[in-house]
């Protein structure tokens, strides 16, 4: 029965409209009886779905808007106001239909994302290529993707190369080229090329599936305003019933009481705030910015201070060896080979950079380090070929009682002034050489930071584990308000606590694992995660999938726009109800016209919310001229 009525809701609405039209036509020809009969039928037809919903809700102890309308319509029939009863039921159904249609649009961004999900995959089974549904792909399968094909699972390229459009995951539509051993993500599209990948994550475990799940849950996560409005609506509906009874008791005017009942429906009030949130979160998701819910939106819009990590956030996080200076009898390559072998045990990116450099120079790293020890944040100590190798920053060198001559110290300072990280390498207790490693500032950093400042960020601070000189260069180039260098993860947390205690609302932007404590401490944690690591996606409040600072700026202005939109909707809804009630009490608003205005206000708040789907940052003045490619650098641990 219910399903049947729901299925025919549209024809029922149309039928009611036809009956009402015929009724008025009959009325025009002075057939009052026929008019009334037609209008009563219209009321009954259009009333069925409403009454049914009201009944189902009341069975669950929920006071619904439908209940208010049902009471009002029965009352109207009772006092013989057939015109009003039919128009109210029709308008309610028609409004419901329009609401569903427009709500669908506010949800469209997410739907577009979901639609990007791949359906089938071509895999190699027993040497044959077979096309199977994407659900049947298991980890370990070799999947073949041609030009124009969608990557069905997360995996690693085992052969071939291709340029991929990763918009589904990162929101960034400029294709990126990938080759053997690179990771590719489900939902991305091979622009041109041919690749075979080894499936690693399938089904619900893919990054893409996780994004969808996060966004779905985020849209449900209610802001404080929404929670308040929901509670409010829970009291409001029964209160309206009581109030209209009071109105009847005092005025003895059933007509007035019924009108009051319908007009006071909280429709626009209840739907206004969620609509803004859903549209805002959807907009972000499509642009590669995952905002986790209404509460995060609300808080993010109030942020006035942003704290940045340097490496990987303001800089590209892909350091390169810019110079190797020997202070001993070792040749440059000899020294590199020795140090790189020791660094094989390091997982830190600076250590990896040295290993990469050695590989790029085709040095064979065949000696396994012995007694290798990683001194977190400072460097490593290992034994290669019987020689004791110490590689790391000043702290480590001094701690090991190795002498730093004036000559070496001034060379290192000079390199650091140029924006490098200087790494000292000692062999058997004597400094053998100094490695310079540098990391470039992101191309969009200057522009993104300038834009956020225009949008209301008052204070921007950089925290880094790196040395003072490098930090100073980066902070100076980007025009930050301050920086703190040579910090450990715990220091960052303490600094954020201080900022919060001083009354700032703080956002912390970092690139994942090492910044996780600081990200968790800040009011809003922002994770830069290319392709999104699991940890950054889970701990942060806002995840930037394309790893771009412009996305951060977009997220900030989006949160402001969303909250503004929500306030507009709430204000508009309250204002409408207030004006309508006044109109009812002084007799200028009637049942049918009141219902019309009421439905129109619901549609208006939805339409207002829909503007957020298209929200795009206003194009900003080009500040690209500052975009000098400054070499900069990174954290201590080597």
């Amino acid at each position, binding site marked *: 029965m*219910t*399903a049947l*009525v*729901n299925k025919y809701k549209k024809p029922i609405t149309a039928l009611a409209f036809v009956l009402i039209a015929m009724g008025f036509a009959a009325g025009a020809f002075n057939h009052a009886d026929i008019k009334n009969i037609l209008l009563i039928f219209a009321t009954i037809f259009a009333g069925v779905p409403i009454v*049914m*919903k009201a009944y*189902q*809700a009341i069975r*669950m102890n*929920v006071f*619904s*808007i439908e209940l208010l309308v049902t009471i009002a319509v029965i009352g109207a029939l009772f006092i013989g106001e057939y015109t009003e009863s039919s128009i109210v039921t029709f308008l309610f159904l028609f409004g*419901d239909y329009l*609401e*569903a249609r427009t*709500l*669908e649009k506010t*949800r469209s961004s*997410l739907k577009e994302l*979901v639609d990007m999900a791949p359906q089938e995959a071509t895999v190699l089974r027993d040497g044959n290529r077979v096309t199977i549904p994407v659900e049947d792909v298991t980890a370990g399968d070799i999947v073949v993707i041609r030009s124009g094909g969608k990557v069905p699972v997360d995996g690693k390229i085992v052969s071939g190369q291709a340029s991929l459009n990763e918009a589904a995951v990162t929101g960034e539509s400029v294709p990126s080229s990938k080759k053997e051993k690179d990771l590719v993500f489900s939902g991305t599209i091979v622009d041109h090329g041919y690749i075979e990948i080894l499936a690693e994550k399938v089904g*619900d475990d893919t990054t893409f599936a996780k994004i969808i799940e996060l966004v*779905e*849950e985020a*849209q*449900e996560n209610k802001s404080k305003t929404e929670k308040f409005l*929901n509670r409010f609506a829970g009291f409001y509906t029964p209160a309206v019933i009581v109030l209209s009874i009071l109105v009847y008791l005092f005025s003895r005017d059933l007509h007035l009481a019924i009108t009051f009942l319908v007009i006071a429906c909280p429709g626009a009030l*209840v*739907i206004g705030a*969620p609509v803004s949130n*859903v549209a805002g979160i959807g907009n972000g998701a499509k642009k590669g910015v995952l905002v986790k819910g209404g509460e995060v939106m609300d808080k993010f819009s109030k942020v006035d201070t942003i704290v940045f990590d340097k490496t990987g956030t303001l800089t590209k996080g892909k350091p390169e060896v810019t110079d190797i200076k020997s202070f001993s009898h070792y040749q440059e390559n000899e020294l590199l080979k020795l140090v790189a072998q020791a660094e094989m045990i390091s997982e830190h990116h600076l250590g990896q950079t040295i290993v990469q450099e050695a590989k790029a120079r085709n040095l064979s790293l065949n000696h396994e380090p012995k007694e290798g020890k990683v001194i977190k944040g400072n460097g490593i100590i290992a034994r290669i070929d019987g020689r004791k190798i110490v590689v790391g920053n000043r702290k480590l060198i001094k701690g090991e009682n190795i002498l730093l001559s004036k000559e070496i110290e001034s060379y290192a300072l000079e390199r650091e002034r140029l924006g490098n990280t200087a790494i000292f390498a000692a062999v058997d207790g004597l400094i053998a050489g100094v490695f310079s490693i540098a990391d470039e500032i992101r191309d969009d950093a200057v522009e993104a930071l300038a834009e956020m400042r225009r949008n209301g960020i008052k204070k921007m601070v950089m925290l880094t584990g790196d040395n003072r000189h490098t930090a100073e260069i980066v902070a100076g180039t980007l025009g930050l308000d301050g920086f703190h260098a040579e910090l450990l993860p715990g220091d960052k947390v303490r600094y954020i606590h201080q900022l919060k205690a001083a009354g700032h609302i703080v956002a912390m932007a970092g690139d994942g694992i090492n910044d996780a404590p600081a990200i968790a401490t800040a009011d809003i944690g922002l994770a830069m995660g290319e392709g999104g690591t699991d940890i950054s996606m889970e701990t942060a409040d806002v995840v930037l999938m394309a790893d771009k600072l412009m996305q951060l700026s977009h997220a900030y202005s989006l949160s402001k726009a969303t909250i503004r939109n929500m306030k507009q909707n709430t204000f508009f809804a309250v204002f409408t109800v207030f004006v309508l009630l006044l109109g009812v009490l002084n007799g200028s608003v009637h049942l049918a016209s009141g219902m019309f205005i009421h439905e129109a206000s619901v549609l208006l708040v939805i339409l207002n919310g829909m503007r957020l789907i298209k929200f795009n940052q206003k194009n900003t003045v080009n500040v690209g001229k500052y975009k000098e490619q400054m070499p900069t650098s990174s954290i201590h641990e080597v």
Partner: protein
Amino acid sequence: MAKAVFQLEPLTCPSCIKKIETTLSKADGVESAKVLFNSSKVKAEFDENQTGADQLKEKITKLGYQVLSSKTS
């Protein structure tokens, strides 16, 4: 403990959430039920010895919501 996700027809009224959630949570063997209003999905965790995804699907359908697809894990 099994988990099922049902994709419904687009939900339009916020009161549907409460309706579905209350009905499902009252059912035997259902640990938790959550309606994702904006994506029109129902997520339910249940004890597979006491009830099944098909029974839950039937309950949702009886409430007047068509289940388009379901996924159990």
